[in-house]
């Protein structure tokens, strides 16, 4: 694994420099912009993180998971339960760890499932957890909702920025590591990967659990902004489907595409929601349908094909 630190897998030496510059700019954002911009940006970061973490596993392996809401919700409940007991950064880590452990257990028992069975199982999982938590709250605690200790937007912003940077770096490096290669070969042919000596179960479970860590940590962070949660809020199935949509929208095959998909759709949703409150869903739906029908490679795919066309044109001219 030492190849990760040597840098020989970096295709472009400018990327780390520019990435750091972008992070620095993002870090300065709350100082120069008005408070609501910070809140908007935080929202964008959440969706980027859950999209990246979803696509990290489901993209290359083609195991379509719709359990993101389960891990996100576990993070939210961790925050609600532990928020008063420990400092905020620790709560966030704990949220991630709890989700990680859960994903590990789930992975151990189910990642031998394949295709549609796996997808349906992951959906069932988040529903199961939601109903379990609901039952627990009603029968054991005699309530349904909980308050979460509120944290100011600025610390939440920086926490999300840290999670975002870690997630992007992680996705970037894992895509270029032996693990990334293993994930892709599982996606292409699981049997072949197995015969080549890849411990497919270990790879799948580990990566699945790590992606759950990011979703859980994000949930823990966001719960402090929502201040009130109940099982249907925390385990809202929307959080399972949005990352899938966003990744497809932007271009499922690249980190860039996933980031663009998440950012554009989040900002678009915010804009439509406030500008066209009555037609918001309609417009949003039409845009999604158009992109999925006409741009199979997502927004990034469009960009690539434009570049290719331009290149062929310049070649023809010379």
């Amino acid at each position, binding site marked *: 694994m030492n190849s990760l630190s040597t840098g020989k897998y970096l295709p472009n030496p400018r990327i780390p420099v520019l990435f750091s510059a972008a992070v620095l700019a993002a870090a300065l954002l709350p100082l120069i912009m008005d408070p609501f911009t910070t809140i908007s940006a935080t929202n964008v970061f959440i969706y980027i993180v859950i999209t990246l973490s979803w696509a990290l596993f489901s993209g290359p392996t083609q195991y379509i998971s719709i359990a993101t809401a389960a891990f996100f919700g576990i993070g939210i409940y961790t925050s609600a339960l532990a928020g008063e007991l420990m400092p905020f950064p620790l709560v966030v880590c704990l949220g991630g760890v709890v989700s990680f452990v859960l994903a590990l257990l789930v992975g151990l028992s189910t990642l031998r499932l394949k295709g549609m069975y796996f997808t349906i199982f992951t959906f069932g999982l988040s529903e199961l957890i939601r109903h379990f938590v609901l039952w627990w709250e009603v029968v054991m605690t005699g*309530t349904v909702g909980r308050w979460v200790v*509120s944290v100011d937007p600025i610390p939440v912003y920086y926490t999300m920025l840290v999670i975002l940077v870690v997630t992007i770096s992680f996705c970037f490096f894992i895509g270029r590591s032996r693990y990334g290669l293993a994930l892709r070969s599982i996606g292409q042919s699981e049997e072949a990967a197995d015969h080549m000596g890849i411990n497919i179960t270990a790879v799948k479970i580990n990566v699945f659990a790590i992606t759950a860590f990011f979703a859980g940590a994000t949930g823990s962070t966001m719960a402090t902004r929502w201040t009130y949660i109940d099982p249907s809020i925390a385990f809202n199935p929307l959080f399972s489907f949005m990352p899938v949509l966003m990744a497809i929208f932007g271009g499922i095959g690249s980190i*860039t595409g996933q980031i663009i998909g998440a950012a554009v759709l989040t900002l678009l949703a915010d804009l439509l*929601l406030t500008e066209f409150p009555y037609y918001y869903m309609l417009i949003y739906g039409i845009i999604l349908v158009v992109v999925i029908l006409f741009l199979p490679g997502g927004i990034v795919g469009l960009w690539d094909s434009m570049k290719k066309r331009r290149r062929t044109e310049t070649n023809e001219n010379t």
Partner: protein
Amino acid sequence: MKVRTPFSLFTVFIALLALIVIFPISSYAAKDKIRIGTAISLSGPYSAGAGMTQIPNYKLWVDEVNAKGGLYIKELKKKLPIELIIYDDKSDTGTVVKLVEQLILKDKVDFILPPWGTAMHFAIAPVINKYKYPVIGPTISSEKLREIAHKVPYFFGMLNMPREQAAGLVEILEEVGVKKAALIYVADAYGIEWSSKVAPELGLKKIDMPIFKSYPLDTKDISPLLKTIASADVDAVLCMSYPNDTFLITKQMKEMGYNPKLLYLGVGVAFPVYKQMFGGPDVIEGIMGAGAWNPKVPYPGAKDWYDRHVKKWNKEPDFWASAFAYASLQVLEQSIEKVGLDRKKVRDYIASNTFPTVIGPVRFEGGFNVQSPGEIGQWQKGQFEIVASKAKRTAKPIYPKPPWPPEKAK
């Protein structure tokens, strides 16, 4: 040769930041209107309630205020019209919190009007308190919020709370001579809190409670539970229910032909649609429900508001919280006209005065309206009559409940 810039991570970041920066360019203008904003459910499960109880009253109020030139603002010595900004919170607490912050930070509204439902009020209470915006919530019924009311001094609750309501309900049972009652509740904040207050009250009055059960929020068939109740031979059936299950229980009880001497249901009974949906007013004769308001109440302006509402929207307001929603606007209006646009002063004024409204005099104690204990209504000849509390009665309770009318031949 053309230099190709790789479209990669950094470009994304730059584009992303640019989007974020360009996005919220807001306009600033001189103070020529009062901006009032609300994030409320235009879509999702809460939208039916919001569209019934709150939004029509918000719009009615704004139109009326603007028709008379606006609200008089003392420090400017003139009337300012109201501009109402409505956002859709999608019945989602994450969205409502974000939109309320957008209203406060970006749209820079002067005041916030609340969303619909207990969960949404819970979600915004800490937010509006942090930014010091006084909000009077008409559709929250929760003891839990009352317990933490001192932590959110900018939040006010308008509706009657389970504690007083439970006492009022059980008082009627005692009055008419109920000896045995079944208590069922929806497994949601509303049902849990209400049943936990009603159950001990029944015990205090020595009313037997052989059945005490919950059912899930999205129940589609409740007949097994109703059969159990029917075989338990109780006098009264009390359901701490939300609109969908209120309708379901009524429908299935009627189909079964099970007719307890007293039937009480929660939110939904007081909705005007309830009158028609089971085949006309004589079907629901004698059913009791949460909420107690009708145009016969003796408060100044009450009948007038009812008429204006019917005229503007071509439909009756609901008899549950509609009047409370309008009354909360009256409280806000009176406070602003008294002390101006300073939100701290408005908050203090609301907290320490009594306001004449369409639901009678409103006064807040510990953040909650102490208007009257127990508000129960009963359908009698197509009218939603107030039967509790005794002092507010517009009719005597009917007991026992008349039998379901025989199914009409079609």
